[in-house]
């Protein structure tokens, strides 16, 4: 079993620098500093690593988009883990804070960045404290600060806590929030690599993404590129939740069939119930039917199956659940979290919630399903940021893949009238 991220995760005292170093921690720094920054960047490019936050964009390519010779530039780690179903970054931050710091130092060196911020969701107060202690250890040891290990390279990290807003997981909203504003998204382009934090070139990477970088530098990009499928390289943390016997965070090789993740990693379905549906990549991606369970868990295969890998949250749903209730619960979430900046999202999420609520309460009418589809159509790709598209996913996919669930509730309403 290849373990890049969860290796040693349950080792006692791993949050301390001493124990982390005994496992070979921070050895990659000297290795990287012996190379030119561009060479480290090329390693990340060659590794095939893709962003683990949701979009799956090639990490090395993102780094290479930084506006040339504009300084200062910033590294912002996205630790705003808020995508429903996702709890992998919390595990890494809780148990292995130094892995992330090592990854951030390597990224900063490759991109010639001197200041990093780690933006935690407000609820991660305890994790920010753990990271703060780890940062202090690194400063004392000379892994952070001026002239790190005599390389002439300066870099320091500061933690920053949000205060409860799902939208701040979207990179441009995160930057806006970090600057002290309401967490509303910005129009892209310009992308953060050109105009990010304080209008300076900025790299925004997810916790898990940065945690893979030490492995790439230590073992070489070829070794990372040899794991996984042709286009989805490496391993992926999958947060399995819902109706399985052993929910948990599992590190899988990209391309592993979903059936294997559910049956072998997560212990199969709970209470002998049958699999009805699964959401492969967090609440923002389309819901798939049970017959797709042999799909490979990688970016391309999940896209071909009509969904997305997203943040790596596999939500498993059994046949006791009517999918209208799932759509309602998620729509309630999106209408709560819509920042209100653009009309299709602000109004659309609310209208969808009202209609789903009526259907769920047994007051549904046949034409309301059509109306829901219309609203989805008016939101898709017409919102300011991806939250609007995310909100459409559970609604549209539940209508398309589980029409009988809608009919069951609407039929019940009709029967009651008759």
């Amino acid at each position, binding site marked *: 079993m290849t373990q890049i991220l969860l290796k040693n995760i349950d080792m006692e005292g791993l949050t301390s620098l001493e124990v982390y170093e005994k496992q070979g921690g921070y050895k990659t720094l000297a290795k990287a500093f012996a190379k030119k920054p561009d060479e480290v960047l090329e390693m990340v490019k060659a590794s095939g690593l893709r962003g683990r936050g949701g979009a799956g964009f090639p990490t090395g390519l993102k780094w290479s988009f930084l506006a040339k010779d504009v300084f*200062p530039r910033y590294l912002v780690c996205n630790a705003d*883990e*808020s*995508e*429903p*179903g*996702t*709890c992998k*970054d*919390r595990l890494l931050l809780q148990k292995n804070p130094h892995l992330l710091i090592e990854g951030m130092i390597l990224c900063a060196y490759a991109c010639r960045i001197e200041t990093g911020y780690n933006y935690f*969701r*407000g*609820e*991660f*107060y*305890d994790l920010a404290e753990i990271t703060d202690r780890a940062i202090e250890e690194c400063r004392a040891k000379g892994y952070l600060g001026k002239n790190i290990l005599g390389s002439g390279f300066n870099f320091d990290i*500061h933690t*920053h*806590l*949000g*205060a*409860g*807003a*799902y939208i701040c997981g979207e990179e441009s909203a995160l930057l806006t*929030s*970090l*600057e*002290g*504003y*309401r*967490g509303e998204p910005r129009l892209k382009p310009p992308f953060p690599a050109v105009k990010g934090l*304080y209008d300076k070139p900025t790299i925004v990477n997810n916790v898990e993404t940065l945690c893979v970088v030490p492995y790439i530098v230590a073992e070489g990009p070829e070794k990372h590129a040899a794991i996984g499928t042709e286009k989805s390289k490496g391993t992926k943390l999958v*947060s*399995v*939740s*819902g*109706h399985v016997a052993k*929910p*948990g*965070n599992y590190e899988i090789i990209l391309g592993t069939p979903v059936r294997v993740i559910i049956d072998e990693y997560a212990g199969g379905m709970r209470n002998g119930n049958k699999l009805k549906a699964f*959401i492969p990549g967090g*609440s923002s991606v389309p819901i798939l039917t049970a017959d797709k369970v042999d799909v490979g868990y990688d970016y391309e295969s999940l896209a071909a199956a009509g969904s997305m890998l997203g943040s790596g*949250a596999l*939500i498993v*749903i059994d046949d006791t*659940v009517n999918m209208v209730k*799932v759509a309602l*619960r*998620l729509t309630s*979430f999106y209408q*709560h*979290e819509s*920042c209100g900046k653009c009309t299709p999202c602000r109004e659309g999420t609310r209208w969808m919630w009202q209609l789903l609520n009526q259907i769920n309460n047994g007051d549904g009418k046949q034409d309301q399903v059509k109306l829901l589809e219309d609203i989805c159509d008016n939101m898709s790709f017409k919102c300011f940021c991806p939250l609007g598209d995310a909100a459409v996913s559970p609604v549209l996919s539940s209508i398309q893949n589980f029409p009988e669930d809608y009919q069951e509730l609407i039929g019940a309403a009709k029967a009651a009238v008759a």
Partner: protein
Amino acid sequence: MFTFSEASEKQIVKIFAKYPFKKSAMLPLLSLAQRQEGFIPPEAMVDIASRMDVSPAYVQSVCTFYTMYHTKPVGKYVIQFCINISCYLNDSDSLLDYMAGKLNIKVGETTADKKFTLLREECLAACSSAPVMRINDTYYENLTSEKVDQILSSLE
């Protein structure tokens, strides 16, 4: 009347030192005020505004955007109870009802003795140990009604 305590003032110096622009200290200062007072009174917003050369109304607009800020007093223990999808699939709704019944309040309310405030929360990022709640800074996972009883009685 609100003033930041001496300890908070020391924190504020450290917070400002993290950022090249003062305004970035907005959320940290709001959080600090809430840690000190339990909520963010209007006077705290005025104080914070004066420290970063913005209007109090602007600070209020930021403060009310984020769900973790309380603009009215809350109980000694703030319970954030997750009801999002992974918790929902693990019957969080009935557990939340149980909790509200036990505390004899509705969701969103504070008990008469000002000890507990019960809030319905969106995903807390602990989905594989659903159902989950957070009380002040501590997560409680894999909840059952028995566990809820234990936790509530353990809080003084």
